[in-house]
C-alpha cells in the first residue's frame, strides 16, 4: 500500500521520536507524512491527496472497518499535532502520534 522508502523513513522517526519533534527533522517528517497520505490516496482512491482534511473525509465515508482502515482513521484524527504552529510545545503530542498512531498504522499494514 505504501512504498518501502516512505515506510523506512517513518520507521526511523518512530524509533527516535525525540529528534523528530522540532526543527528540520520535524519538517522532514511532515513531508514524509504527506507523501504517505499521497500514496494511500492513490492506492485507495486513484487520485493524489491534495488536502489532508478531504482525504480524511473520504476515508471516514468508507464503510471498511478492517484493522488497517481503523488505524488510518485514528492516525488521521491525530495528524494535526504534527502540523501545529501555535505557541505551545507540541513535543509530547508528536511523540504520542509517532509511537502510538503512526506505529499502529504501520503494524496494521504489516498484519501484526
Amino acid at each position, binding site marked *: 500500500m505504501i512504498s518501502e522508502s516512505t515506510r523506512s523513513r517513518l520507521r526511523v522517526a518512530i524509533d527516535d521520536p525525540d529528534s523528530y519533534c522540532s526543527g528540520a527533522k520535524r519538517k522532514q517528517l511532515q513531508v514524509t507524512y504527506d507523501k504517505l497520505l499521497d500514496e494511500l490516496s492513490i492506492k485507495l482512491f486513484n487520485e493524489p491527496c491534495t488536502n489532508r*482534511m478531504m482525504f*480524511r*473525509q473520504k476515508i*471516514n*465515508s468508507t464503510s471498511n472497518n478492517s484493522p488497517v482502515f481503523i488505524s488510518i*482513521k485514528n492516525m*488521521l*484524527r491525530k495528524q*494535526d499535532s504534527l502540523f501545529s504552529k*501555535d*505557541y*505551545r*510545545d507540541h513535543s509530547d503530542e508528536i511523540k504520542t502520534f509517532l509511537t502510538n498512531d503512526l506505529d499502529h498504522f504501520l503494524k496494521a499494514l504489516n498484519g501484526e
Partner: protein
Amino acid sequence: MSEKNKDIALKAWKVYQELAKGMGESAWQIRSIYFATAAGLIAYTYNSSSPILYLLVSILCLLFFVIESGYRRLQDQYIEKSMAIERTLNDFIANDEHPRFPQSIGTDVDTPSFKSLIKLFELKRIIFWLPYLVFFFLPVVLFLLDVKKI
C-alpha cells in the same frame, strides 16, 4: 443530535475566542501604559538630573510584567480550550463517526501558575518578554553610567 452538538461546539468556540481576545486586548493595554509611562519617566529623569529615578522604571517594569503575564497566562488557557473545540469541529467536518469532545465545556480556568510563567520565557515568545527585558536593564545601565542633562 449531531447537529445540536455541532451548534454547542460552535457557540463554545465563539465564547472562548471572545474571552481570549479580551485577555489579549487587556494585556496590550497594560503593555502600552507601561511603555508610555517608562518613556516619560526616563525623559523626566534625564532632565531632572536625579539618575536614581531611572531605577523606578525597572521596578515598574517588574510590576507591569507580573500583571501582563497574568493576563497572558489566562489567555493561553482560553486558547487551549478553543483549540480543543477546534478539534471537535474538525472531526465534524471530517464526518468522523465519534467526534472528540473536551471533558467538559466551561469558562473556568486555573489560577496562573509559576510553571506557566516560566513557559512565557520560551524563545518562541520573544516578542512578549524582550521589550520588558530591555526596559528592565536599560534604566539600570543609564543609572550606572550616571546619564543626565548637563
